[in-house]
């Protein structure tokens, strides 16, 4: 995988360090700023704090959702032209999949991560013909797997041999809901 470059973004600095080390060990040059050439985009998405949906402040709820979604959607939009030029581009979002929908008071987190699932699957179909795969690594926000295991999953999805993994949720956890 030598000669490839990855843009790795998100707020979790421990995870970002682990991702940088792992992709670096795979021979991928990792940057934190967009450049002209790009083979891989990895973006880790956080979750708004739990709170009531009914009776809570609506503006706060939407602000919490958009604070997580906007950077993720923009990162993907901005990266796609370079990923198209790369020919075998990879987008790996790190999120919580459907897990927040199982947790009390988590409507904002469920909205963020449900939207990410929709983005992952829809874009996977749209970008597949360009040779770009779009997938999501799912981590349980309440009981996160270690960063090394998450980085191993990202590393796998970025390999040339993962080119048939398209629009999938790869859950790095033990058990949990099984929804495609």
């Amino acid at each position, binding site marked *: 995988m030598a000669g490839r470059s990855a843009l790795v973004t998100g707020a979790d600095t421990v995870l970002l360090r682990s991702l940088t080390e792992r992709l670096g060990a795979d021979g991928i040059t990792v940057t934190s700023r967009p450049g002209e050439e790009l083979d891989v985009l990895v973006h880790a998405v956080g979750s708004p704090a739990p709170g009531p949906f009914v009776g809570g402040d609506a503006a706060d709820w939407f602000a919490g959702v958009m604070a997580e979604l906007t950077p993720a959607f923009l990162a993907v939009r901005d990266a796609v032209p370079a990923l198209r030029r790369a020919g075998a581009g990879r987008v790996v979002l790190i999120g919580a999949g459907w897990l927040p929908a199982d947790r009390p008071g988590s409507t904002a987190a469920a909205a963020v991560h449900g939207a990410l699932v929709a983005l992952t699957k829809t874009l*996977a179909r749209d970008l*597949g013909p360009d040779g770009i795969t779009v997938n999501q690594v799912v981590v349980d926000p309440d009981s996160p797997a270690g960063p*090394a*295991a998450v980085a*191993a999953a990202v590393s796998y999805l970025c*390999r040339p041999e993962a*080119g*048939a*993994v398209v629009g999938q949720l790869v859950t790095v956890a033990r058990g949990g809901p099984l929804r*495609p």
Partner: protein
Amino acid sequence: MTSTDPPGPPGSVAVVTGAASGLGAAVAAALRAGGRRVAGLDLRPSPAVDLAVEVDVTDGAAVAAALARVEGELGPVEALVTAAGIYEMAPVTAIDDARWDRMLRVNLSGTATVCAAVLPGMVARGRGAVVTVSSDLGVGGSEGDAHYAASKGAIVGLTRALATEVASTGVVVNSVAPGAADTPMLDAGSPWRAENFLATLPVRRLVRPDEIAAAVVFLLEVGPAMSGQVVSPNAGATI
């Protein structure tokens, strides 16, 4: 939880069922390339493994004897991949008892029998990884695949149940659910090879055996953080 276990220590023993051809052979090759010693269990001799054992995976006594031979000659089994399986298409009205029983016996009972033979040793040693091979059709279903989809969907349930059952032991159980793959399981005239099917896939092609093998290797090596999961290299057939 942080995974600190070494992934697939060199020389560790892997058992691959269905290793004589197709997907099983691709998995065996990938594991050997990674430094593991591979025992291939198949009705026919597995050509490129460290120990080939000819065995019917649906025969519990024969599987137990095969496992004893593997452990005697190669050592304790650290990885199991159940790739033995059969495929045919038939409308549900044409699936008589014999066809139904054969499909379920080979794909589901064969998987369960080998898991039941291997898991106790892994649990006793407190380490090991199992990857079953289910199918994208086991999740998505398709016309002409009632018995096959039933057998493969059941493997997903089996996998998740086993993962739960051994959750506290250090042993992990996951599944790879491939989409239509370019292996001998699909004959030349299969509708899965037709241009009008391939055109529906986001990546416009069948899955390659080495891609399925890569998913298996990932799940064997990711460590204790991941169990009861299904990874589906399916070319986008089920998104």
